[in-house]
């Protein structure tokens, strides 16, 4: 019996954690071997999956997809519709982590959640900043590193929450433009608009770019490693983003994929992820045995900023264009 499955997660540190902490136990428990694939950024992975599916190929059977991309994929029916009955454990997840097609089949299941927070170099900033508003602080001129892809940086939401009292203003184009204008003011503070996490992390650690937005989990690991880095949940909240398991329709391993997703939805596994990978669980917290301290390390009690995935799907091209114009100045 040599059942196997190709699973894609974000490459690098993420993939490595899964390789060491999750897959071996999964294989031991189910007899399904995992071939681990490192994904690039979500958008290009989506394009790859789409193109490959046209050629009836699946570079990975199960992929961890960010929400915007998951939605895009779902709208072109790229994801296979999964049978919820084959995955009893998904009932552990709150509804917003389980996406379904109209016919009731499941297109995506929450895999992990993470926060984007305000990170600083502790040598450059002895005091932790408390608000996203620091991004606008003129004292921080030429000191920020921000994510350059609109669909992963969620700066629109951050800006809306910080300066317009919430993300509702993003409902209309005029509102978005207003937020963009506000965001434009950040530009002079930005040293690096990054796509590559590695590039920013290195600069952050050395103090070359002492402040920016980054992933709470990775920053925490670096801090634990003794690097002069800290991650702060601003008073407005961190951005809560998540990745979902999606299965390419070109995959021939639907059954194994369902076994895998079901396995991943167990509270013990989610807790293990929180401890070892540093992600926030997608199952309800009460089901896990995480201590308060452990939970605080991966999450926060401050209400999070929730990304407005809908606007990216509705106005993708337009937003992109405006965004490109905005960051280029």
């Amino acid at each position, binding site marked *: 019996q040599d059942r196997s499955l190709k699973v894609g997660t974000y490459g690098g540190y993420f993939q490595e954690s899964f390789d060491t902490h999750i897959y071996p136990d999964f294989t031991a428990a189910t007899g399904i071997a995992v071939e681990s694939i490192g994904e690039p950024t979500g958008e290009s992975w989506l394009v790859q999956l789409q*193109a490959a599916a046209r050629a009836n190929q699946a570079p990975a059977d199960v992929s961890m997809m960010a929400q915007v991309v998951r939605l895009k994929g779902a709208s072109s029916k790229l994801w296979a519709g999964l049978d919820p009955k084959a995955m009893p454990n998904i009932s552990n997840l709150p509804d917003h982590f389980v996406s379904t097609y109209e016919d009731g089949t499941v297109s995506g299941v929450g895999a992990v959640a993470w926060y984007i927070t305000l990170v600083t170099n502790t040598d450059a900033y002895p005091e932790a900043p408390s608000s996203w508003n620091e991004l606008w602080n003129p004292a921080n001129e030429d000191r920020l590193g921000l994510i350059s892809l609109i669909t992963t940086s969620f700066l629109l939401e951050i800006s809306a929450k910080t300066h317009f009292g919430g993300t509702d203003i993003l409902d209309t184009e005029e509102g978005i433009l207003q937020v963009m204008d506000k965001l434009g003011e950040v530009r002079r503070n930005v040293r690096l608009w990054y796509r*590559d996490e*590695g*590039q920013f992390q290195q600069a952050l650690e050395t103090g070359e770019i002492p402040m920016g937005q980054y992933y709470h989990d990775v920053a925490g690991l670096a801090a634990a490693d003794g690097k002069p880095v800290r991650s702060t949940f601003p008073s407005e909240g961190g951005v809560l983003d998540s990745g979902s398991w999606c299965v390419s329709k070109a995959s021939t391993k639907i059954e194994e994929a369902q076994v895998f997703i079901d396995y991943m939805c167990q509270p013990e596994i989610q807790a293990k992820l929180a401890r070892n990978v540093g992600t926030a669980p997608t199952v309800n917290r009460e089901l896990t045995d995480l201590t308060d301290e452990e939970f605080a390390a991966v999450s926060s009690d401050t209400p999070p900023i929730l990304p407005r995935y809908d606007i990216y799907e509705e106005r993708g091209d337009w937003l992109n264009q405006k965004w490109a114009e905005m960051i280029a100045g």
Partner: protein
Amino acid sequence: MTRVLKSIFVALVFSFLAAPIIVVLGVSLNQPKRLLFPPEGLSLRWYGALFRESDWLGALQNSLIIATCAALLAVSLALPLALHVWKRKGWMARALYSLGVAPFILPPVISALGFMIFWISTGFYGRIEATIISHAIFLVTLPLVTISLGLQSVNEELLEAARSMGADARTTFRTVTFPLVRPYLVSGFAFAFVLSLNEYIISYMVSGFTVETLPIKIFNSLRYGYTPIMAAVAVSFVALAAIVFGLIARFGDLPRLLGAERASR
């Protein structure tokens, strides 16, 4: 005085060229699993890791397969083309030659996108064959140029001599033309091989992560700030290129291959 200035200028240019290589070399010798320069603690472990870690090994394998096949294919496309151009010197032949040279001269993004669309629409997207063929077409310029140079250096009187001694057209090709252009064929192969090994954008757009090559792998690991293996790969490739071209220079006439008229002394 002027001589000193000249030497300084040449030395500056060389250090400009060498700087990145030194950086990658330094990074590749890091002890910790970080991309640090200057390196912290010297170690060769990442070179070893390149041949031990299965995903890197797989990428290496892919790269080598692609480079070998693409270079072979490019050479076998270039040889008949070059022969044709050499025999018929009309404008048609010249146009054909330009067509062979074009893909390499245009911005690679364009070729990459063209290939991507082509393979998607024919349904071969993501197959290793697609990458091989794309590379072969992209790089066909190199063997085409070297073989053409080789053919130009074949004195026509040699062929006539063979004919006057009783060799028909095929025998002449087999016993004279081919042995004479063989070194140029080999160097065309080498050029194509080395460049295919390092090609990024086309491989990326044509089969991306299904057929992961080393440059793609490097780009990804760079993206996640991850492992000095990628530096080790880069250094190995530069070393490989230096060896290949060094051999060509040693056993062939590299300046002439690059178009110098006077043979090197």
